[in-house]
């Protein structure tokens, strides 16, 4: 079974076409980079997979097709905007424990120790890097088939980035697939099995990372940039 299968996905918002004709199949047990310019539709694609955005077409995660059953199989880096800013980290963890039956508390403990998270701290008091670490810890503590990390590195320092990358390597379950979006390839290139590029309102490229290095003899970054070279030819 595939971790994710998308067929003929189409999404419009206010009559603007955001994504169309999206076809994508992801195998289990892979780490995949979701690349594309800002506003290309990376976040929208993730929201469509989680069921937050309502599009047309079929999305199947580990065999689950309806929005509700899909939500059981997908862990997404939510930015925790549903909480009051005065809430303590341990209360958020308690919330996750109570509403997600697949939440693994032991795993969370390991992750929070590794990432130096303090349960007594308040959500509003966290720096951007620490908040992102918390989000990663919560997201990876669920035991699901598909993890969606939406730009986990935007605007955070390199030490936090390293810690987060190491958590991903260490705590992504063996048969789970992890889709991680970013607009800088270089910082995540070594951990990627494959890349998926969202361009011209659709998934335009899906290739193995070592395949690109092997066959093209190119850095992922260069390859990615080459997709946009001479790119004013909008058709």
């Amino acid at each position, binding site marked *: 079974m595939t971790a994710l299968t998308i067929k003929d996905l189409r999404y419009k918002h*206010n009559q603007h076409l955001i994504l169309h004709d999206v076809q994508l199949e992801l195998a289990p047990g892979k780490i995949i980079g979701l690349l594309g310019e800002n506003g290309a539709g990376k976040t929208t694609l993730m929201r469509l997979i989680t069921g*937050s955005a309502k599009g047309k077409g079929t999305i199947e995660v580990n065999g689950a097709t309806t929005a509700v059953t899909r939500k059981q199989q997908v862990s997404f880096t939510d930015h925790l905007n549903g909480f009051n800013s005065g809430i303590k980290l341990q209360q958020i963890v308690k919330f996750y424990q*109570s509403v997600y039956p697949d939440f693994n508390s032991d795993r969370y403990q390991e992750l929070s120790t590794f990432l130096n998270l303090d349960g007594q701290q308040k959500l509003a008091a966290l720096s951007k890097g620490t908040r992102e670490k918390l989000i990663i810890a919560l997201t990876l503590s669920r035991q699901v088939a598909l993890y969606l990390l939406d730009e986990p590195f935007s605007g955070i320092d390199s030490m936090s980035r390293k810690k987060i990358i190491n958590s991903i390597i260490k705590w992504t379950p063996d048969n789970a697939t992890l889709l991680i979006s970013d607009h800088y390839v270089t910082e995540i290139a070594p951990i990627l099995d494959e890349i998926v590029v969202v361009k011209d309102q659709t998934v335009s490229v899906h290739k193995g990372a070592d395949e690109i290095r092997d066959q093209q003899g190119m850095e992922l970054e260069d390859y990615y940039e080459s997709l946009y070279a001479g790119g004013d030819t909008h058709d």
Partner: protein
Amino acid sequence: MTSSWSLFKAFSWPRFMRMNLLLGLELLAVVVTSLWTAIKGNFTTATLFYNLCAWAMLPLLVGFVMLAVNNEKTVRATTYRLLPISDWKFYTLNLTASLVNMIYLWLMQAILFALTLTLGWSTLTTGFNMSAMFFNQFSLSSGFWQAIAGAFLVIILAMVLVWSTISLIHFATNATAGFLPRFRQQFVNVIITIVVIYIAFRVASALIGMVSYLSSQLVNQGNVSSVWTSILVMLAVILVEGVINTLVLQKWVEPTLN
């Protein structure tokens, strides 16, 4: 799947804290105004009761609005919409959590009234023999209790009706983003809001009629059974709105971007 009970607790807890905050502020206001009365030298055992009467509506009103805002925020928060639970359960639990908290707020008010009333009973009864007579007259008749229960139900259903109507406007104006360009969406949303508010006003006027009928029945000690049919009508409207809301929620209402 997320269990309904867990989600109910998760929805209720922050709202419960807010209701308690409101109660705390109310108590503070009552105490401060009573102290002021004491400083002026007019303090009697009934002062607390009078001051409670003066303040009681405010937390109920603020609480009602707060919970309405909370209902709508919850629906638009990705944090909650990611949860693996069906949309009709989500919608019902959200509304129920607010309702339970609102009932809690009313209940606490009732307890506060009972306490201050007991405290000031002697002062109040010597001052107003009329009120004592009023209570004596009705307390034993079944019509009185029926009317009280009816009034309570009407209030509860009216609140739920207002909340679900707010959701209906909110959801409908949100759903139009899926179909219309931004400019036309705004135009259509204005129309939707006007139409729904118009309908809501009609329902509200019917409600006011019902309440006045109820109070007339209370005074005349008459039969209040026809109130129950009206309650059923309200319940039906709430259910219909609930079904529409759930469908719209499931198909078109997206949480806000992170």
